[in-house]
């Protein structure tokens, strides 16, 4: 066992998959000698050379388009967006091409787009967004959002091995703040399977990414101060959603709070709430509550950003409110 940060876990997954499978290669802006803006690909250029760790021009559309081209010829590209915010520049390549090629032509597109997302890092409106809901609406894409170092590693390995285009949202705030002991043995975490981060009976808290830790803090405090037992579900994969686990938990607790860092309206929480309403309405003792960032661009001011984002206190209060029904 050795301690690894979330960022190091991603680096390890890339290294191991490149070593395991020669068809895996990386492309992105300054990911080679420089090691990427966040240094996620540090050391990989030296280990695998410039043919497999490719520096590209500053064009997300070209990066994703090249990855699609490589994927349909049998390679397994992993493309890096410097910040998830810039993925919009390659939006058409992802939703019109990558997502539909298998449906249109029966051609698998085994590619991963790594998208460093999330706020709390004082990055302002162009470097802090959580754009997963845009892609959630597009059939043909898989979406992953790990919270722990173990999942960051295991889910990336599964994403690379998957025959579908996968958008892998890695949370920038967690890069060097999450540290865990990881086993030497290979970690592969299957896509589409959520994880129960904390067992509980009174209320189900559904979340993913950096919000997992805020939910766990809130759950701990609720138990200590009010004897309320919250079951925290870390979705890990957003598309496909693990509805089986979600519904099992709802049937047990009858109360649901959904937490995500992305803005509230049209977010993934809305879809989950709708599905719970359709499939488990008779089990509910209270309306499904959503906690998310405000429907504004991400503020640059730290004080405003703190107000803008969900946190343990807001989650704690929301759960107390739900428990009153």
């Amino acid at each position, binding site marked *: 066992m050795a301690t690894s940060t979330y960022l190091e876990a991603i680096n390890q997954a890339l290294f191991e998959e490149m070593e395991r499978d020669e068809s895996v290669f990386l492309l992105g802006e300054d990911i080679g000698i420089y090691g990427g*803006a966040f240094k996620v690909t540090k050391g990989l250029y030296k280990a695998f050379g410039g043919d497999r760790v490719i520096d590209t021009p500053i064009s997300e559309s070209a990066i994703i388009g090249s990855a699609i081209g490589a994927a349909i010829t049998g390679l397994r590209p992993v493309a890096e967006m410097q910040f998830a915010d*810039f993925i919009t520049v390659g939006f058409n390549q992802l939703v019109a091409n990558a997502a539909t090629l298998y449906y249109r032509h029966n051609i698998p597109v085994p590619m991963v787009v790594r998208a460093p997302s999330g706020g709390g890092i*004082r990055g302002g409106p162009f*470097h802090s967004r959580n754009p997963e809901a845009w892609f959630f609406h597009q059939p043909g894409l898989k979406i992953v959002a790990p919270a722990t170092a173990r999942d960051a590693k295991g889910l990336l390995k599964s994403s690379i091995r998957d025959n579908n285009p996968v958008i892998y949202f890695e949370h*920038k*705030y967690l*890069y*060097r*703040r999450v540290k865990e002991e990881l086993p030497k043995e290979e970690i592969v975490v299957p896509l589409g399977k959520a994880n129960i981060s904390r067992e509980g009976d009174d209320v189900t808290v559904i979340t993913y990414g950096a919000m997992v830790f805020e939910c766990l803090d809130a759950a701990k405090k609720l138990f200590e101060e009010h004897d309320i037992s919250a079951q925290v579900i870390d979705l890990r994969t957003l598309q496909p959603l693990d509805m089986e686990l979600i519904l099992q938990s709802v049937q047990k607790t009858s109360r649901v709070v959904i937490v995500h860092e992305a803005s509230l309206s049209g977010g993934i929480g809305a879809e989950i709430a709708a599905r719970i309403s359709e499939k488990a309405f008779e089990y509910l003792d209270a309306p499904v509550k959503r906690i998310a960032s405000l429907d504004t661009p991400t503020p640059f001011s730290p004080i405003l950003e703190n107000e803008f984002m969900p946190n343990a206190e807001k989650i704690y209060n929301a759960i107390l409110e739900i428990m009153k029904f």
Partner: protein
Amino acid sequence: MTKKYFDKMLSMQEILRLCIDKEKDLIEFYTQAHNHARTVEEDKMFKALIEDSHQHIVTLEKQLSEIKAQQETDKALSYDVY
């Protein structure tokens, strides 16, 4: 003594490292003092002080780690030329 350090305009990282060193010195001092304890009360007190200092180090290292993590993010943000 405190003024001497702060007159140097230390960065928060330097301050935290200094604090950690001072806590380590304290642990050593309290450990020696504990070895000289004559009563149960003195034994308990120095043990508690040693534990407090260990806890202070955990808190200080956590904040130091937080600053380092944000520094790396800041580097990435300032590198970005969009």
